[in-house]
């Protein structure tokens, strides 16, 4: 595939160090000449909404390779309100959105890449990535990290909002509290209710920035992983067609 005029190939003509440095991480001649795709995830051991995104990023990489592109995975993890809540850690919650968005922009443009896949599940990371996609003059698409499975009887972490108070007031035994605590989050993925995280996944899909049907797919299912792989193939197409979110999402 010819992509001689792309951002990444232009860089190779003006900065010879880049190829040498990338060969330090096993990029060979074929890799260097390919369309270069950033896969930026919010993977980390930060919370279950992001802890599975490394595996999902691997799927997206396969998709990019299938379409003859060369992927590179970056990460900036996000924080969880559920864990930051009830102390002044919560002051960082909304404020973190801006700095994440800036980091995604820096990743996409400092190297630079020809197209980007952004991958996230939760309430600050999804808008941060959408903001970056709108800012970049670059083909980009979003992969939703999907939803957590439910606990018994559709139980979710929401049950602990009330249960903790009841326990503190002596209305709930420690054993009952433990039952809720240890069973409400049986897997990775965004919270099972339509809170901000799931809402933002839906917004991403509704804006046309995630593949149709991707939002809310359950984490660890092939239903979700297929979207990641397809996204890898799709971004290569989008680069070929110069499909830039800034241009196809109108301001009116």
């Amino acid at each position, binding site marked *: 595939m010819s992509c001689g005029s792309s951002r990444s190939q232009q860089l190779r003509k003006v900065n010879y160090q880049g190829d040498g440095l990338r*060969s*330090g*991480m096993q990029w060979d001649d074929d890799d260097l000449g390919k369309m270069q795709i950033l896969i930026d995830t919010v993977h980390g051991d930060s919370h279950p909404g992001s802890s599975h995104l490394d595996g999902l990023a691997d799927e997206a990489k396969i998709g990019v390779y299938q379409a003859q592109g060369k992927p590179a995975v970056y990460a900036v993890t996000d924080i969880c309100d559920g864990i930051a809540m009830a102390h002044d850690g919560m002051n960082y919650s909304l404020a973190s959105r801006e700095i994440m968005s800036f980091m995604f922009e820096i990743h996409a443009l400092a190297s630079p890449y020809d197209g980007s896949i952004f991958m996230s599940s939760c309430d600050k990371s999804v808008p941060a990535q959408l903001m970056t996609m709108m800012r970049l003059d670059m083909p980009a698409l979003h992969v939703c990290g999907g939803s957590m499975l439910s606990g018994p009887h559709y139980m979710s972490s929401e049950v602990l909002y009330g249960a903790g108070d009841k326990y503190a007031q002596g209305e709930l035994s420690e054993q009952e509290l433990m039952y809720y605590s240890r069973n409400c989050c049986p897997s990775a993925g965004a919270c099972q209710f339509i809170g901000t995280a799931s809402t933002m996944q839906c917004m991403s899909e509704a804006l046309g920035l995630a593949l149709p049907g991707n939002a809310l797919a359950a984490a660890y299912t092939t239903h979700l992983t297929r979207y990641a792989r397809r996204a890898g193939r799709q971004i290569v197409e989008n680069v070929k067609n110069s499909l830039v979110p800034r241009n196809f999402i109108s301001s009116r």
Partner: protein
Amino acid sequence: MLKSGKIDETSYEQLEELCGPTCGSCAFYGTANTMCCLTEALGMSLPGAALVPAVYADRLRLGEETGTAIVALVNSGLSAEKIMTYQSLENAVCVLMATGGSTNAVLHLSAVAAELDISAEAMMAMYDRLSQSTPQIAKVNPAAKYDMEDFYRAGGIPRVMREISALLNRECCTVTGKTVGQNIGDYKFKYPRDYRVISTIDKPFSEQKGLAILRGNLAPDTAVTKPAAIAIDMHVFTGKARVFDCEEIAEAAILNGSIKAGDVVVIRYEGPKGGPGMREMYKAMKYLYGMGLAKKTALITDGRFSGTNNGCFVGHISPEAAEGGPLAIVQDGDKITIDIPKGVLHLHLSDQEISARLAIWQRPEPKFKRGYLGFYSQLAGSAAKGAVIKPV
């Protein structure tokens, strides 16, 4: 060299395949390795941690030991602000000077110091003082042919610190829970000494300053240079200004032969706000070298340099041009003197002339208005204060 026909495509590809044989930070003593060494000198990483090559099993062992160490630190309540102090910053600056580290370290250590509420002025005084009193006892690529692996085998930072221990604050606390002095004494070296890479304090490679802070009417808030990378007969240089408002225009001028011996290339609007982000005038310096002008010209800027640059350069000029520093009013043909022994960067104009030119100076539009760079170019502080972002 490929472009000028000095090497062919095959040798170029061979070079490319050979130059990055593994992962890890760059194999020369640039800013990355300098910062790892300074972290160790600050007491914030385990002894020896800076220079173990990335692919050694010892590097993984070090990761494991670091995991153990952090748990011990939490148990003992020894937090980073007890380790990073004015005194441990002095140790880091000593190691910076003793090893001929990168000019960027000045910017980064000042930014760290700002978090500790240590003033920019105090840090500049520290660099000045310790650059005069610390001999350079380690010499690594780009200052010598020896690479980072050689530096590691020669004993790395523990050897450097043992050698200059008389100059260090040995009572400073470190992440081992022990003092700098105890760490230096306890360290077990794995390889024999190599005096070609790390010498002794009695026989230093150089007594002259590794890095130097300059001041003067062209840099009222300081500028930074690296005498260790400048030929000794270039330590005092006077020439005529050739002024460029960004890196690319200057590079084109160097390449098309319009820069002559005796010129001082001025590249401005490349500071924290102006650049924005203080780009490294890496290529401009390499082009001067390539055109055979490295020992006949100087380059001054409010931007930065790479740790690999050699030649007469002055960077981090503060205040920067975009903030209305005197650099903004320099014109082609103005006479400029760089005097490293005296610590001076001087523009041969009267104070009245400088004020008159500044009075009619107009701040150019920022190069970026959107995105992070638009944000950064509004909020970035002076290079003399570490170029940290701060509220307007």
